[in-house]
C-alpha cells in the first residue's frame, strides 16, 4: 500500500493551478536536498576509496630541475593554490596580498637525509620536470623509504654488481634462501646509491626490505606490486612506532574485542527482546522499558566510556585485583583498561541495536505458528526455543551484525577503557590461558585517531591513515550491507506471511 505513488492518483488535466506550479518548485528543491544527501555519502565513499587505494600504488618518480640549478627527485603528490605574501611581512602580520600561485608537494622520502618526507615546491621556481627511468625506490627497515639512483652493490668494499638486474637478482635470492646467507658472509654487504644532490649514500644490505624502479614497471607489474603491498599492510606488524608497516594487530584486536562483545551482547539483547515481545504485557512498565532502550541507544558513547572506566576498570577491576591478584599490586592486572572491559562497555552500548533487530525478527514469526505449537502441547519455552527463535534468527543475526559494525567503528569509549597505541602482546596467544582478557589491545578506529593526530609526523603517516580508513570503511560497509540485505529478506517474508 505504502509504495503506491500518490501523484498517480491526481487527475492529469488539472495542472494549471498556481499552487501546483509553486509546489513543483518545492518538490524539485526537496529532490535537490535528497540529491545533496546522496552525493555526500557517495562523495565520501569515493574520497576514502581513492585516497585509500592510491596509497600503495607505485607513483612514477620524476626529476624536478629548479631555476636555481638544483634538482629534486621524488613523486608529485598534490598541487595546491597558495596565497601570495608580501615580501617582508608574515602571514600573521596580514601580509597576504590576494594573489594566488600554485605549489606542488613532492615526496622526496629520505627522511634521514632531508629531515622531511615531503617538500613543497612553488611552481614558479621550477625549470622543468622529467620522468627518469633509473630512479629507484627502496623500502627500508628504518627511516621509511629511500629514493635514489642505483650505483653498485658492494661486499666489504669490493664491487659485487653494478647492474640493476644483478642487484634485483641478489635481492630475490636473499628472499628465497632466507637470512642464513647473511650470517655466513664475513664482510658486510651494502648498496650504494646516488641521491638528487649528487652525493652517494650507502644502505646496509639488511636494511633493505625491497627495491623497485616504478618508472620501468608495466601496468600489470604495478598491479602485482600493489596487491602485495596491500596484503602486507593487512598482515604485518607496525614498524617505527606505527608510522610504517601494517595494521595486523589493530585488525586482530578489533576482531577479538568485537567477538567478546558479541558473546555478552547477544544473550542479553535477545532475552530482553523476547521479554518485550513474548512475555511482557503492554502497560506502563513496557513503556518505561522502551524509553530505557531508546535512552541506552541515545546516550553519548563517551558517557558509556567514562562509566566503563569508573565502574568496570576501577571498581570491578580494582576489586578483582585485590581479591585474586594481591601479589601483583600496586601494578594493576584487571584494574586498568583491557579488552574485557572494553568489550563489556561496548556490549552495553550496542544492546539496543540487538534488541530492536531481534524484536523485528520476532514480529516476523506469524502468530499462527506460535498458536499451532502451543496447541500441540508445547510449553511457552519450547515454543520460543523450537519455533519462534529459529524463525527470528535472521533478525537476531541482523542485530548482531549491526552491533558489530557499530563496535568496530566506535572509538570514544574505547579510548578510555583499554586501547593503546602499541600493544606489546596480542590479547590471544599460545601462552596459557591463551585468551588474556586483561590485556590492552589495538583497534582500527583508535589507530586512525592516533596515527592521524598524535604521531610525530602527521604528514608522513597520512597515507597509512587513509589506507586504514579504507579498511575500516570496507569492513563496516560489508557488514552493514549484509545486515540490510538480511533484514530486507526478513521484511519481505514478514510482509507475505502476515495475515
Amino acid at each position, binding site marked *: 500500500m505504502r509504495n503506491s505513488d500518490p501523484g498517480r492518483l491526481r487527475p492529469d488535466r488539472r495542472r494549471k493551478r498556481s499552487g501546483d506550479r509553486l509546489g513543483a518548485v518545492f518538490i524539485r528543491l526537496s*529532490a*535537490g536536498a535528497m540529491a545533496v544527501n546522496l552525493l555526500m555519502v557517495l562523495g565520501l565513499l569515493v574520497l576514502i576509496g581513492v585516497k585509500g587505494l592510491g596509497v600503495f600504488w607505485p607513483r612514477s618518480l620524476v626529476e624536478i630541475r629548479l631555476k636555481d640549478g638544483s634538482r629534486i627527485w621524488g613523486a608529485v603528490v598534490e598541487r595546491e593554490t597558495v*596565497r601570495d605574501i608580501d615580501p617582508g611581512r608574515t602571514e600573521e602580520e596580514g601580509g597576504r596580498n590576494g594573489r594566488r600561485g600554485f605549489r606542488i608537494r613532492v615526496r622526496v622520502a629520505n627522511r634521514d637525509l632531508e629531515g622531511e618526507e615531503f617538500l613543497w615546491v612553488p611552481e614558479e621556481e621550477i625549470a622543468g620536470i622529467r620522468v627518469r627511468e633509473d630512479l629507484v625506490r627502496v623500502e627500508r627497515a628504518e627511516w621509511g623509504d629511500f629514493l635514489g639512483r642505483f650505483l653498485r652493490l658492494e661486499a666489504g668494499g669490493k664491487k659485487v654488481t653494478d647492474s640493476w638486474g644483478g642487484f634485483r637478482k641478489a635481492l630475490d635470492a636473499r628472499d628465497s634462501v632466507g637470512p642464513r646467507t647473511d650470517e655466513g658472509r664475513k664482510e658486510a654487504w651494502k648498496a650504494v646509491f646516488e641521491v638528487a644532490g649528487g652525493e652517494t649514500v650507502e644502505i646496509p644490505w639488511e636494511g633493505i626490505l625491497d627495491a623497485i624502479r616504478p618508472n620501468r614497471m608495466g601496468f600489470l607489474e604495478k598491479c602485482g606490486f600493489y596487491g602485495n603491498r596491500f596484503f602486507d599492510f593487512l598482515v604485518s606488524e607496525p614498524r617505527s612506532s606505527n608510522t610504517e608497516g601494517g595494521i595486523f594487530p589493530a585488525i586482530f584486536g578489533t576482531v577479538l574485542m568485537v567477538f567478546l562483545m558479541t558473546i555478552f551482547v547477544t544473550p542479553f539483547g535477545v532475552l530482553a527482546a523476547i*521479554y518485550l515481545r513474548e512475555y511482557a504485557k503492554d502497560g506502563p512498565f513496557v513503556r518505561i522499558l522502551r524509553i530505557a532502550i531508546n535512552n541506552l541507544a541515545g546516550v553519548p558513547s563517551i558517557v558509556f566510556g567514562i562509566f566503563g572506566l569508573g565502574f568496570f576498570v576501577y571498581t570491578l577491576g580494582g576489586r578483582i585485583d585485590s581479591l585474586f591478584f594481591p601479589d601483583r599490586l600496586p601494578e594493576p592486572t584487571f584494574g586498568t583498561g583491557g579488552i574485557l572491559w572494553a568489550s563489556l562497555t561496548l556490549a552495553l552500548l550496542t544492546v539496543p541495536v540487538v534488541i530492536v533487530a531481534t524484536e523485528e525478527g520476532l514480529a516476523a514469526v506469524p502468530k499462527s505458528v506460535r498458536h499451532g505449537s502451543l496447541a500441540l502441547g508445547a510449553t*511457552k519455552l519450547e515454543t520460543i526455543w523450537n519455533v519462534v527463535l529459529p524463525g527470528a534468527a535472521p533478525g537476531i543475526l541482523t542485530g548482531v551484525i549491526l552491533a558489530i559494525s557499530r563496535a568496530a567503528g566506535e572509538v570514544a569509549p574505547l579510548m578510555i577503557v583499554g586501547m593503546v597505541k602499541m600493544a606489546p602482546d596480542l590479547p590471544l596467544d599460545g601462552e596459557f590461558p591463551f585468551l588474556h582478557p586483561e590485556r590492552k589491545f589495538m583497534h582500527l578506529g583508535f589507530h586512525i585517531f592516533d596515527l592521524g593526530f598524535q604521531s610525530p609526523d602527521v604528514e608522513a603517516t597520512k597515507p597509512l591513515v587513509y589506507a586504514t580508513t579504507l579498511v575500516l*570503511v570496507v569492513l563496516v560497509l560489508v557488514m552493514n550491507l549484509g545486515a540490510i540485505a538480511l533484514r530486507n529478506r526478513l521484511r519481505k517474508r514478514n510482509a507475505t506471511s502476515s495475515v
Partner: protein
Amino acid sequence: MKAESRRREIPGGGPPGTSKRRILKDRFARILVRLGGMGILASLLGILGYLCLEALPLLSGATVELSPSRRIPGLGPIADLLLGPYARKAVVLGRDGRIRILDLEEGRILQETPALRGEEGKGRAGHVSSGPGFSLVLPGGRIVLRRVEWARRFEEGSTKVDPLLGEETVQETGFERVISSTAVFEKEGGYAVLAQSGTDLRVVFLQRSWEINPLTEERTVRESRKVLESTGSRFLHLALNPSGTHAFGVTEDGRLCWWDLESGEAPRFHEGNLKVSALGILLGGNGLILGGPDGRLSEWFLVRKAGEDFSLLHARDFEPVEGSVRAIRAGHRNRGFLVASDTGELALYYGTTGRCLWRGHAGVQRIGALAMGPKDDAFLAGGEGGEIVRASFRAEHPEAGIGAFFGAIRYEGYDRPSYTWQSTGGSDDFEIKLSLVPLVFGTLKGTFFAMLFSIPLGILGAMFVSQFLHPGIRDLCKPLIEIMASIPSVILGFIAAVWLAPLVESGFAALLAAPVLIGILILGGGATASLLPRSFRRRFPRGFEVIPAMFLVGLGAWFAILLAPALEGSWFGGDFPGWVQETLKVPYEQRNAVIIALAMSFAVIPIIFSISEDAFANVPRSLVSASLALGASRWQTVVRVVLPTASPGIFSAVMIGLGRAIGETMIVLMATGNTPIMDWNPFNGFRTLSANIAVEIPEAPVGGTLYRTLFLSALLLFGLTFCLNTAAEVVRLRLRRRYAEL
C-alpha cells in the same frame, strides 16, 4: 492481552503429556527472560546511579572532627603555631618568646628552648605571611627568624615525625624600633622580611637567600636591603607574597596599600575605610584575605586591566564570622583558608569559589594563633590562655560546587567575573578553574551549527523520499543513507580535519556560492524540463527527479569550485581567512564550527532522515488519497495533510538528532581546536563536554576533583540526552497511538 490468556493456558490446563519438569523449565525461562528485560532498565539506572555516585561528593563541604580543647601543662599564652604531618606534633611560639615542641597525642611538652638564646623573655611575635617558621621582634630593631622543618623517620613499621628547628637568624633592620613586621620563609631556605620603623615610619624590605653550588657545595648568600619610599602612615598589618615581589599593608586609618617591590616605586593606596583585624595570603601568593573586627571577610588581588597598570581589586566577600577576626591561616595545597574569631568561632573557606566549607566553635574564647597541617587534613588552634584545639578535617573537593561549575567567578588576576575551564597547571600560582559553562556553550554551539545544516537536508530528503520518490529507487536510496549512518565518526573526524578543513579554508567562497548555484541550476533545470513537449516528458515517470537533481547538484558544486577564486577575489580580497580577521575582526581557525557542521551532518542527517521518513511513510494513505481526491495538488497535500500529521514524528527525529549531535565526541575532538572559549563566531573552535571528557580523563587522578567533575559533565550529557530521547519517545508513542486511531 494475548500473553495473559496464553499464560493461563499453559501451566494449568496443559495437555496430559506436560511433565512437571517441563513446567519447571518453563517457569525458569520466564524468570530468566524477565531478568533480561529488567537488565535493560537496570543498566540504564545503573549508569545513571553510578555517575551520580561519582559526582555527588563534589557538592559536600568539609567534615571536621574537632577534639575538645585541652590545656597542656606548662604552656602559656600562644603567639604562633605550626602543625606537623599526621597532626601528631606541633611547635608553639609562646608570648614569652620560647619555642616549645608539643606531643599532641600525649598532651605534653617534649622540648623547650628560647627563640634566641641569651635574650629570653624579650620581644614579641611577628607576623609570618607564609612558609614554615616563626619570627620574633626584639628591641633594638632586630628580628629573629627561626625556620621549622619536619623530619620523618621510619621506626618499627610506622612513620615518626620530628620537628627540626633551624638555626637562629638575627636580622638587623637598621631601625631602633620595629612596630610592625612580616616575614616569608622561602622553600629553598631563604627568607624575606618587611618591617616598619617606630621612629620615622619608614618601611624596609630585607631579603636573604642562598644558593648551594652542587659541585663545590659552597654556599653563596645573597642579601638585599631596600628602604621603601615613606608614606607617613603607620601600618597595623603588613603582608608579603611568597615570591617577594609584592607587599601589602593596612594603615591605622583603614587604607589598604601595596608595593611593587621589584620596581621600588612608591606604594599605591586603595582608598576606603577598611577595618582590618587580621590578614592572610592564599597559596600562590596572589589572593589577600582581610578579616575585620566586625567579622567580615573579603578577598583582594592585583589585576591589570588592558592598557592600565596594576590595581587592587575587591574580588569577593565571604560569609562573615561572629565577632572579630583574630587569625587567618591559608591552606598548603589549595586556595582554602581557616579563620578564627574572638568569640572562639572557627570557619573554613575556599577562596576561588567563596564557599564556606565549615563553621564550628572551638570552645576557647580567645584564639591567638592557627596552624594548618601540611596536607590540609588537620588544623590546630591555640588560645591565648595556652589551650590547644586539634581538629582533623576532610575537604576533598573544596574547589568544586554549584558556583564553581556554573557561576561566573573572579579568578585571581581577572578583572571581571568569567566562565573559564582550566583544569591543570603546574605551580602553586595556578588556580584551578572548573566552570562547565564554556563546555556547555561549546556543546550547544557545535550542535547549533550542525543542526542548521542537517535539519533542512534531513527532513526535506525524507519528505522527498517518502512522498515523491519513485518506489523503484527508494529501495536504493534508503540503504545509502543507512550506510551514511554507519560510517564511524572517527573517520568523519579524520577526513574533516585533514582533508576538509584546509579545503574550506582555501575555498570558502565555493561553500557560500554552492547553495545558490545549486538552487539556480535546479530551478532552471525544472523550468526547462516543463518546457519540453509533453509526449517526451511522459516517457519518464514522475519520482525520478532525484537523478537529474544529483547531476545538477554535482554541476553546481563544480561550478562553485571553479568560480571560487574569482569570487574570493571580488568579495574577500582574495583571502577569506584574512578578510574574516580584518573585516569582521574575529579570529579564523582552520578547524572551526563550519567544519564541524559539515562533518557532523554526516552523523546527524541519517538519524533525522530515517526517523522522519518513518513518520512520513506511516501517515495513513487514506488521508493522502482523500486530499488528492478533493483536488489538492501533490505539494498541497504534503504541506497541509502529511506534514501536520507527521510533525510529532519529525519533532522526535530532530530531538534524537540533537541528542546525537550533543554527544558526538570523535568529530569534535579531531576537527576543532578544543579550546574552551565562549564565542559564537563560526570561524573558531570550541570544546564540547564530550571532547573534554576524552581529553582530560587520562590525566585525571582517580577520585580527585577533576575526575569527579568529568563524571559530572558525563552526568550532564546523560541528562541532556535523556530529556531529548524521552521527549522524542513519548511523542512517538503518542503518534503511534494516533495513527492507530486514524
